[in-house]
């Protein structure tokens, strides 16, 4: 037997999936967490049952890529049962989708989820009566705490196909069928009158704060404070581990140990690849005294992901998970909606944008929540070019601590300016969307820790091998003289147009594998503060890293070529403009 887990976006389907299958998929308090389907298995009465977490959809007439996936999954799963998850505090809205699925002949079980929220809002739902009218099992649940989940699973066997005509008949007072959307809504209204009672509801403090955090006059100051807190804790935490302990471990213990035990010694090519390239001091090759400059696969290759990036990525994902689970992210989306409309996007574009600050790869996937091809193309391009990932930010924090704010501002300005231009020249629609804002809620430690663990371990699996490989590759290219050759060929462009040393060619090769590694390698090149800022900006807006590259190719298809074209234009204009700025200031 196969079960499809369906429902509107943001009703807790992923929480159900994790509860039922014991799997670990990311659950978030805003739509678009699941943009592709996920498969898992549940053991029920001695049998393995396949469960599929389908992306959220409002109806069976898809409006975006994620909804297309949902509807296609349903059509390809004839003979399956459907677990339809409905937000109990908005039961009418959920019933529309449930009726559509029932009409298609699927056996359905309804989970009236967020039952606690409905109670808080003084909404009384007669679940038994609803079950009687629909003729299918209806179970009240609070997925986040696990309430009602086992009852729901045990009722799956009771799900059988029902005819909508029978539902119409059982809903006394409805004279017509339910074939058109209007008739379906009329039927839902009839059902709702029989099962839902709205009691007196007084605004709570949570509601009032929730309202104020989406109104610009009060919401923007609050958003500034939240982002301030986010950034401040990010800096303090990453600095504590990296500067306080990990730099010492790597520079004072790990690197000297490697230098002492590894055969070959300075000048040996294998030693240079793995431990230390060394540097020239008065014409003599000298050993490096820190892992930033040693460039070895086992020195810099491990120090960058484990010593610098890991604490940064960990705290970033912890803070993000907290904001997601409290329910602040959808409010940020509403707040920024007006601004993002100016560049042809809408509020939920903030989701891939913020995810990209952690890692660009899941962010490209999250662009599926945007409706049109134009919006997806724009979002993918903008985030790949202008949003540095958490790993890169972590390294920037160490390499250019005093200038990181300027770099970020320059990138944000580019994001909006090029977004505005792209909106004007790219054909296609940029429709409005209605955004659902869930109530604030207390974050669950289990959910937070699982999200942080999954995202951080996912990062390590991708980053560590790529950084080690990147260190090896760049060292091989250095030793083979390729980097010098590239630097010489591209010197007029690097020095004349971008105003950075020709040696920047090496880190730019590494940037294609890992941008964090590239920024770390920049620190070993002698240059002025302003050249360093330009070089870091170049690394950011230059080609996306290989993992993002692959994801963009997969998600964007042919439009990926368009993204590359935009990228080339941006590198030359935005990179050159910064050099011009330094010249005007008299510092270049």
């Amino acid at each position: 037997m196969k079960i499809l887990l369906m429902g509107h976006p943001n009703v807790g389907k992923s929480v159900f999936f994790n509860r039922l299958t014991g799997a670990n998929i990311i659950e978030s308090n805003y739509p678009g967490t699941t943009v592709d389907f996920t498969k898992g298995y549940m053991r029920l009465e001695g049998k393995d049952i396949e469960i599929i977490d389908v992306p959220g959809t409002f109806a069976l007439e898809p409006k975006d890529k994620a909804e297309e996936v949902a509807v296609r999954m349903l059509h390809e799963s004839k003979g399956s049962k459907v677990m339809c998850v409905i937000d109990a505090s908005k039961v009418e809205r959920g019933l529309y989708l449930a009726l559509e699925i029932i009409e298609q002949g699927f056996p359905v079980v309804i989970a009236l989820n967020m039952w606690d929220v409905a109670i808080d809002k003084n909404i009384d739902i007669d679940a038994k009566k609803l079950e009687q009218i629909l003729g299918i099992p209806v179970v009240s649940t609070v997925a986040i705490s696990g309430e009602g989940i086992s009852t729901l699973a045990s009722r799956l066997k009771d799900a059988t196909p029902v005819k909508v005509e029978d539902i119409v008949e059982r809903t006394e007072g409805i004279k017509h069928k339910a074939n058109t959307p209007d008739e379906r809504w009329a039927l839902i209204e009839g059902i709702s009158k029989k099962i839902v009672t709205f009691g007196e509801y007084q605004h709570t403090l949570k509601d009032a704060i929730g309202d104020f955090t989406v109104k610009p006059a009060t919401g923007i100051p609050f958003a500034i404070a939240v982002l301030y807190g986010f950034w401040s804790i990010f800096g303090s935490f990453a600095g504590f581990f990296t500067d306080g302990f990990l730099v010492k471990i790597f520079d004072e213990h790990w690197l000297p140990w490697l230098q002492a035990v590894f055969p070959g010694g300075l000048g040996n090519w294998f030693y240079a690849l793995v431990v230390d390239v060394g540097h020239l001091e008065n014409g003599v090759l000298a050993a490096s005294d820190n892992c930033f400059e040693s460039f070895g696969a086992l020195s810099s290759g491990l120090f960058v992901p484990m010593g610098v990036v890991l604490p940064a990525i960990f705290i970033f994902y912890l803070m993000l998970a907290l904001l997601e689970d409290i329910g602040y992210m959808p409010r940020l989306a509403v707040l920024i909606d007006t601004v993002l409309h100016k560049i042809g996007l809408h509020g939920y574009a903030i989701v891939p944008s913020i995810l990209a600050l952690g890692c660009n790869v899941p962010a490209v996937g999250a662009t599926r929540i945007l409706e049109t091809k134009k919006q997806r193309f724009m979002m993918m391009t903008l985030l790949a070019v202008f949003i540095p990932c958490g790993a890169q930010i972590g390294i920037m924090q160490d390499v250019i601590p005093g200038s990181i704010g300027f770099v970020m501002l320059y990138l944000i300005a580019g994001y909006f300016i090029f977004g505005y231009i792209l909106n004007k020249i790219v054909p296609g629609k940029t429709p409005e969307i209605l955004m659902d804002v869930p109530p604030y809620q207390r974050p669950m430690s289990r959910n937070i820790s699982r999200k942080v663990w999954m995202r951080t371990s996912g990062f390590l699996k991708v980053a560590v091998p790529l950084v080690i490989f990147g260190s090896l590759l760049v060292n091989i290219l250095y030793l083979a003289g390729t980097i010098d050759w590239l630097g010489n060929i591209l010197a007029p462009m690097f020095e004349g147009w971008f105003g950075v040393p020709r040696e920047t060619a090496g880190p730019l090769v590494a940037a294609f594998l890992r941008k964090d590694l590239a920024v770390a390698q920049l620190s070993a090149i002698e240059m002025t503060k302003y050249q360093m800022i330009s070089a870091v900006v170049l690394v950011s807006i230059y080609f996306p890293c290989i993992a993002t590259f692959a994801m963009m190719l997969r998600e964007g298809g042919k439009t990926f070529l368009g993204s590359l074209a935009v990228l080339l234009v941006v590198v030359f204009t935005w990179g050159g403009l910064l050099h011009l700025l330094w010249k005007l200031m008299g510092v270049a």
Partner: protein
Amino acid sequence: MTKRSGLEKNNDLYFIYFLILGLATLAFGITDLIVTITGSEYTTGALEIPNDGFRGGWGGLIILFAGIFYLSGLKDLYEIHQLAKVVMGSILIWIIAGTDIFAMITESIPGGEDSGWFNAAQGFWGTYAPPYAPAIFLLPFSLVVIFCIYKYYKKI
């Protein structure tokens, strides 16, 4: 008959308290911004106004917003939306003071570049010694809002 909020009793007292706190917060915010913009240094006794772009600039702006939240919410505090504004003012202060305290903790533990793994006792306690930023001084006064929330829900 609907029960009244516990805040309705002594409403004038809350009004005066948050008026003073709001004005003080606003003054700190403005001072923070002036000190940052002019690039000057201001330390007097146990108080130090930060003058860097991040803590002094953005932090000062947030303290200023907190003062505005207090002043806009102090009238009829027993009304939930008014109370919410005051609570938001306190949350803003908690964010600034919380991050300041967190930064102190993370600075106080490691030994630094040329010493051992952990800080010596003197260095550890020294990190927590004054002067403090304005948000730290405002922190205890902002906590009164928790009592207000308690009183709001304790109907009379």
